[in-house]
Every structure is written in structure tokens, then in C-alpha cells.
């Protein structure tokens, strides 16, 4: 299936599909609409030509439009640092093509077609990941893409031949399409991490015989935060038929009892951010715009709307990281886990079991606290007083992606430990707070919890005596990232 780029309907999930290799095509009417928009261009010089003296000094009048475009694009290739992964460059190309497809930028259809052509032939430029301040757009990263699109750098002859006019040279780079694309991919990954965290919470609750009151719909509805209500509903769904999670078990610690409240914030942030990102992706993030045959100068390239949304997600995500880590702590803590052995192994002492697993989660949760620092609170004047307030949105997007990796591993750790705890319950292995063995009857898992448990055990064996821990952690993180744990395998 080819993803349709029509400047109106591109979703975060579409961007993610293109990132992972889906082909793209312009919408049925996009060519026509872009042609009409380009044809409405009033006579006279475009903005780039008007600003040419400011841009390239005394040579301006000697330059042909071709030379002007090339000078402009090459001059913006000032990105540095590690290259963006190929999938994220593809996502960025798709997002930029969709902005051009809004048919408000004055570009001819070929400007979008060349990007689509590159996507479909998998010609993916090398784009350094650092150096954009997210206003006036992701200039440097997009220029590294435009350099190839416009044929200013080596590229296969099979890509449609393209020489931009001055307005197109500007439109190819003048918006926060990299920030939006990275945000879109992050949102898709995050949904999977959140779904996994909800399932993991249900497993933990079953393992520690949690009280059922905290996920009761009446309780959550009485407070009426939609995120909390949804998390509660989904935990209840996983726990359907549980013989362990009962009202009479009473009140648990906050990491369990308040899980719907804490994790619900991410549900709401994600949905809000996805809406904002999709507006941006389908919006005219360019300047100037050509509307009703008139050039209108605005500031649509400024990344503020998505920068702040992405920063907000980072805060909610940190809450998920820290609350999952605390449940991990409880699972490994003999006196806090309602009869589970210290570090979830028998023969502790000679065995350290899952001691270090919790350290790993703690370290990652701590990393998130630093990464959550909002990029958008900063701004630094750039370009000779002209671009005197910038968004730092691309930094927000890149750190969000980095945090998603941390949290995928944190949730993987909870999954790993909850599965081990359930195994111990199923085997009737229990201890008191002092480590003395207790008589305990083996439990039967709730059906959907058993399904989750089986998915873990398909990849990671039960831990009896100390073995090398890292492969288990890696496999657990992979279960979350791959979607296998929640039964919905997808590329990351």
C-alpha cells in the first residue's frame, strides 16, 4: 500500500510507515492543485530574489536564478554531528513533501514529486542530526535533503531531473518538517511503550495480589480524567477473571494504586500531541505563502507549537518511567512484594537474581529526568537580530526519541520481572519478609495475563540460578519495541 501525500490527510502512523519503507504517492488532485497554485504566482521577483542582496551580498544581481538557488541550499548545509538514521530521514522527506502538497507554497508539483521519487527509489540523503534551532524551520537538515533533491550532490540518474526556482529552494527547507517527522515516529513508538506499560502493570498487579479498588471504573470516573479512566479500563481488561486482584486486598503503594492517574497523563498528552503534530504535518509550514494569488509573509516556519507539545510529552513520559521503576523496585523487594522472594529468585545469597535489573531501571529513569529538560524554554537570537526567537523544537524531538528508548527498556524490565514473579506464584513459591519459606498455594493466572506471560516465556526463560543478565534485558526491551508483547508486531 502506498501512502498518499495530499497535504491534508497524512497521519503520524503514515509517516512511521514511510519511515520503514512504505512507498508514497501524491494525492489524486495534488498535482493539479499545486500547478494551479504555482500558476497563480504574481509577476515580479519572489521573496528569495528580493532578499538576494541581503543573502549573498554584492553578487546578487550577477546570479542566475539557478546559481542563486544552489548558493542558498549549499549555504544552509551546516548540520553537524551523527547522521540521522535512514528511517528518520525518510520520515522527514515525507513530512516536507506533504507541506508542499498543501498547494499554498507556490511550488510546482515537481518539487513534491522529486521527494516522493526519492522515497520510492529509497534514495536517502545523509543528514547530520544536529544544528537546527527549529526556526525558520529545520533549515540545515532540510537543506541536506534538498541538496540531493536538486541535484547539487551526487544522486542516481533515475531520480526525476529537478532544478528548483527560487521560491522552491526556500520552500524545500523553510519549516519544521524534521521536528514534526521525528515527533510522529516518537508518537507511534510511544503508543507501543504505553500499551506495554499498561499490560505490564496488570501483570505486576496480578503478581503482588493488588487491590482492585484502584482500577474500579466508579472510582476513576468519579474523578473524571479521561486518561486515568482509559488506563483503568485497559488494566481491568487484562485482569479479567483474575483470582488475585481483589477488592479485599486493600490499598497498595502509590506506584500501583495510582498507576491510572500517573500513566493516564501520558494517554492524554499523547493524544493531544498527536493532534498538534498532524496539524503541523498537514499545515502550510512555509513562508511566504501564495494564497489567492497574493504572497503573504508570515511566521509559519516557527516550531513553537510542536516544540512545546513534544516537551510536554517528555514530562508525562518521565512519569511513566519513574512509576514503572518503582513497581520494579517493589517486585525485587522481599518485604514489599506480598511474599515474593528477594530479587525474585530462590537461594538468594549465592544468587543475586534480579538485583541489578532494578539498578538498570533506576539509572534509565534518572536519565529521563535530565532528558526531560524542556528544550523549548530556551531561545537564542540568530541571524543578525532577524531570527531573534527560535523554538529549539528539533532538540525536543531528538531527546524525546532518546527517552523513548530508555523507557522501552524500563518497561521491558517490569515485564521481565512481572513474568518471573508470576512464575513463582504459579509454582507456589513464597517467602515471608525475613526470607523464610511459606506454604502457599499455586495460583492460576487470569487468561489474558497468561497470554502475556506466554509471550515473554517464548523469548526469555524462567530464571532459576544466576545467569548472564544482559541478554534477558535486551530480549525484554525487544519484546516491547517489536510489539510482540502486546500481540501487535510492527517495525520500531
Amino acid at each position, binding site marked *: 500500500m502506498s501512502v498518499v501525500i495530499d497535504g491534508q490527510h497524512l497521519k503520524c502512523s503514515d509517516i512511521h510507515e514511510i519511515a520503514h519503507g512504505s512507498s508514497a504517492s501524491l494525492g489524486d488532485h495534488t498535482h493539479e492543485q499545486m500547478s494551479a497554485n504555482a500558476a497563480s504566482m504574481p509577476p515580479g521577483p519572489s521573496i528569495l530574489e528580493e532578499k538576494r542582496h541581503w543573502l549573498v*551580498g554584492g553578487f546578487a544581481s550577477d546570479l542566475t536564478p539557478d546559481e542563486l538557488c544552489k548558493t542558498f541550499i549549499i549555504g544552509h548545509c*551546516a548540520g553537524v554531528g551523527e547522521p540521522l538514521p535512514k528511517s528518520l530521514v525518510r520520515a522527514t522527506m515525507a513530512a516536507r513533501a506533504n507541506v508542499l502538497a498543501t498547494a499554498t507554497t507556490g511550488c510546482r508539483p515537481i518539487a513534491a514529486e522529486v521527494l516522493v521519487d526519492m522515497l520510492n527509489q529509497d534514495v536517502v540523503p545523509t543528514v547530520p542530526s544536529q544544528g537546527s534551532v527549529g526556526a525558520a524551520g529545520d*533549515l540545515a537538515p532540510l537543506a541536506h535533503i534538498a541538496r540531493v533533491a536538486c541535484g547539487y550532490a551526487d544522486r542516481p540518474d533515475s531520480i526525476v531531473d529537478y532544478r528548483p526556482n527560487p521560491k522552491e529552494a526556500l520552500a524545500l527547507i523553510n519549516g519544521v518538517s524534521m521536528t514534526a517527522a521525528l515527533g510522529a515516529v516518537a508518537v507511534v513508538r510511544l503508543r507501543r511503550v504505553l500499551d506495554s506499560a499498561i499490560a505490564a502493570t496488570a501483570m505486576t498487579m496480578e503478581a503482588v495480589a493488588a487491590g482492585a479498588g484502584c482500577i474500579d471504573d466508579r472510582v476513576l470516573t468519579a474523578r473524571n480524567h479521561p486518561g486515568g479512566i482509559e488506563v483503568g479500563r485497559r488494566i481491568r481488561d487484562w485482569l479479567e477473571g483474575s483470582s488475585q486482584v481483589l477488592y479485599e486486598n486493600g490499598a497498595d503503594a502509590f506506584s500501583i494504586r495510582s498507576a491510572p492517574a500517573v500513566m493516564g497523563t501520558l494517554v492524554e498528552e499523547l493524544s493531544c500531541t498527536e493532534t498538534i503534530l498532524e496539524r503541523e504535518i498537514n499545515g502550510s509550514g512555509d513562508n511566504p505563502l501564495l494564497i489567492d494569488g497574493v504572497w503573504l509573509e508570515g511566521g509559519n516556519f516557527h516550531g513553537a507549537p510542536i516544540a512545546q507539545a513534544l516537551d510536554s510529552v517528555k514530562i508525562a513520559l518521565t512519569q511513566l518511567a519513574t512509576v514503572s521503576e518503582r513497581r520494579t523496585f517493589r517486585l*525485587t523487594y522481599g518485604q514489599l512484594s506480598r511474599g515474593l522472594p528477594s530479587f525474585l529468585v530462590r537461594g538468594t545469597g549465592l544468587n543475586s537474581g534480579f538485583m541489578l535489573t532494578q539498578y538498570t531501571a533506576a539509572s534509565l529513569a534518572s536519565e529521563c529526568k535530565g532528558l526531560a*529538560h524542556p528544550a523549548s524554554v530556551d531561545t537564542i537570537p540568530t541571524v543578525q537580530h532577524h531570527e531573534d526567537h527560535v523554538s529549539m523544537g528539533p532538540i525536543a524531538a531528538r531527546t524525546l526519541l532518546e527517552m523513548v528508548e530508555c523507557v522501552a527498556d524500563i518497561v521491558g524490565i517490569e515485564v521481565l520481572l512481572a513474568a518471573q514473579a508470576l512464575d513463582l506464584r504459579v509454582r507456589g513459591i513464597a517467602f515471608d519478609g525475613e526470607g523464610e519459606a511459606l506454604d502457599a498455594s499455586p495460583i492460576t493466572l487470569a487468561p489474558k495475563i497468561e497470554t502475556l506471560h506466554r509471550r515473554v516465556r517464548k523469548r526469555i526463560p524462567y530464571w532459576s540460578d544466576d545467569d548472564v543478565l544482559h541478554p534477558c534485558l535486551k530480549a525484554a526491551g525487544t519484546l516491547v519495541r517489536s510489539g510482540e508483547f502486546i500481540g501487535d508486531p510492527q517495525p520500531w
Partner: protein
Amino acid sequence: MTTPLVIDGTSLCIADVVDVARSGRAVVLSESARAKMADSYAWVQYATTQDQPVYGVNTGFGSLARVKIDTAHSSQLSLNLLRSHAAGVGPILPVAETRAMMLLRANALAKGASGCRPLLVDTIIQMLEANVTPVVPSQGSCGSSGDLAPLAHLGLVLADGDHGRVRYQNREMTAAEGMAAAGIPRLIMEAKDGLAITNGAQLTTAIGALALHDAISLVEAAELAAAMSIEALRGTSRAFAKSVHALRPYAGAVATAGNLRKLLNGSDLVDSMPEKLQDAYSLRCTPQVLGACRDAIRYAVDQISIELNAATDNPLIILDEEGDNKAFSAGMFHGEPVGIPLDVLKIAISEVANLSERRLYRLTTGSLSQRLPPALASKDRPELGMMVPQTTAAALVSENKALGWPASMDSIPTCEDQEDHVAMSTTAARRAARVVKNARLVIAIETLGAVRALQFRREEDSELGLGAGTAVGLELASAVLDSLPDDSTPGQQIEALSAWIASGAHAGTVAGLERIA
């Protein structure tokens, strides 16, 4: 050929770490350290025959110290520690950092307070020699009780068995395969070996030592770039006068002011505008800001240098102490003493870059640059000049602000509340390395701007005399840029200058510059 580095647990310095980690300098264990290690090893062997509980020798680990273990299982206990502690996630640690961590652990053991055999250190040294490095995930250490997980991955390679992975001859393989190919015998773990290998913040310190080396070099590059910018902006040297700085005698500021005077000595451009009494802060306050950074880095160097030669194990075996029990359980593994300085390093280096970015803004802003061309765009060919690189610099310094968040300020209880305060020093170290890298790119961008600016000044007046140091700096940096293809992008020019700074080739443009030692 450089002489091998002799390690004895007392004399390792940051430069040695760089030599071994990045340049493959050979290492040997000193004979006196060997003897000391043998003595402490003998005591642990004796302790295993006694009833007295010794942490980690005949007890479990962490909160499991409450559990007694039969000494018949000491070897298994060590091996299990390594296996269960080999946690961590994320990207694999680069080879240089891994080698530095190995060297640091070997040196800590050479102190002779860990009760392990010299053979353990000899084996690490052989691995360094053959360049067999453990595969270590870079994330997941709390820095207390040390960098347990990363060091356990080293332990898995040392310990005989079908565990552990290495990189050898640019390939990843099992430890068994790699060590056999390199001809290095693996060891049967003995009592306390597991603890001796893992208990200490050596990964924090390894990354920190390399980052500090780069930071020191970066300050030198920042002073050169500052001098070049000040010169190009026709700055005023009175703000750097010796007598001025004697009145507020911070060591760092005095050093920076002195270096600026040396670099700018003889310049026709400096003080060429008598009507201008004082410059903007990014020029005038360079000694105050870079000086404060120097002082902060100095503190970090002092702390890291202590840690490089510290015994960080628990328990420590101290044979000089009276009494039968020579094992002292303490908290020497805690990463805080290195975590805080590395967080401070991040602040200092962020400021080095912040100041640089503002000078660059002046260089590229027509109304602030004493008649340099707008954006420093060439007069010979059409180009945007430094318009976008200044934006790149702004993005990089902004990125450092989040990385600057102090990791060591955080703590999360671990290990059933036994390890209820941890350092998070490893995160501080990893972030410090990133801050240094970002800052180096910023200084590279300022250098690029300053080169262009000085070239313009030269075009205006070919007879123009530049400063003693800045003239050399201009020549060196121009040569780097001239070596690039004609159609190089600004990004490529920045990366080339950053690599030039990383190589240290910018150093010593004029005699007598004061360096952070």
C-alpha cells in the same frame, strides 16, 4: 616507541589514560604492586578458612549480606556475581572508553587492597595489549556501588565459561573465541574476585578522564578562537591587563588574561579604535568566564586524578591495621566524588561554548562587527557565509543546556533500600562527553568565523600585523580549510575544524601559554 606505562595504583594520570585508551600504549604491573597484591590475596585465602563473616567472601551481596554462604562456594559466588550483575542496556560503549575503564580497574587492583591475584591484572593488561575489549552496554549504571554492570561485563570475559562477548580485530565474538584467538588464558574465579572486578566507579572515571583531556584541549582552542575574534572585532586589550586581573586574582582568569595577551601580542588590530573605551561582554569578559571555567575544570581534574589512583573496592583489605579482621567494609565505590565534578565540568564547558557562540554572533552581525561583511560572506564569490553556521552553534549550545542537568543531583533507592543513595555519576560522565563534543563543534564554528574575519581584515590591509599567536592560529586553521574540496559545505568545514581541535594540533601557537595541567 613510547615506554610502557608502569601501573602501581599510585601514579596514574589523565594523560596516561589517554595514551593507553586511544594510542595503545603498553602497560606493565610494577613489581612492588605485584608483591602487595600477593599479600592481600593471601589474607583473603586465609579468611576463607575462618568463620568470621567477610562481606562478599562468605556472604551474599548488597542487602543479601544478611545471608551466609559456605566458603566452599566462594568461587561460584564470584562467578554468579559477574553473571547476575552483567546488566545494562543501550548502545555499546566505544573501544577507547572501554579500554580506559579496563586500565582504571587494573590500576585500582594494583593498589593491593582488594585481595585478588596479580594474575587478574596481568590478564587485563594482556587484553589491552592484544586489544580484546569486552562488549559493554553503555546505559544502566547508577555509579554506586560502582559501575557494577559495566565492570561485570569485563569480568565475564576474564572468567572462564561460556559467557561474555568481546570485540577483537574489528569483529564481535564470544569471549571464549576472542580470548583464545588472542592467546589469553581465562581465569577460574576465586573468593572475592567478583567484587574486586566490579566494585568502583571506573566507567564514570574512564569516560570522565577522556572528556577532561578533551576539555583541557578545548579551553586552549577556545582561547585561541577568542583571541582571533577579539582581534577581528578590533577589541580593546586593556581589559586583559595583568594589573587588572591582579586585583581579582582568580587563577583561571589570570591565566586566560595572560594567554590572551600572549596570543594578541603585536597585533595592529587590537586597540586600533582609541575612541572605543570598552567591548561587549563576550569579548571583554573572556578572562572572567573562561577563567571560571578553567577553575571548575581544575577542580574536576583534581578529583578525577585522585580517583584514578584510588582503591574503590568493598571490603578493602588493609594489612597494616591491627586485629585479626583485615577486611574493612566501607563505601569507597560510591561515584559521588567523581559524579559532582563531572557535572561541574558540563557547566564549565557549556559556558565555554555559550561565550563563543555570542562572539560568533557579533562576528556575523553587520551592525556589531566593526564593518565586517554581513554574515562574513565572501566578497569574491556568491555565498551565504556564516549565516547558518551561527544558527548551528546556537542549536548546539542550547542542546548542552539539557545535557547540563546535573545527574548527580538525582538518586533513586536500589537493592531493597540497602543501597538507598546512589551517585548517577555514570550518566554525568556520559553527558559530559557529549557536552564536550558539542562545545568543540561550537569552537570550530567560531574558529571558522574568525578565520574568515581575519582574512577580510588582511584583504583590507595586506601589511596588517596580526598577534603572535593569532597569526599562527589563522595559518593553521586556514590550512585545514584549504585541504577541503572547493565545494565543501559549511557542515564539512565545521567538522574538519572540530577534528583539527580534537587532534590537539591547535595547541602551542605561541610560547608560554598556560595550560590546565
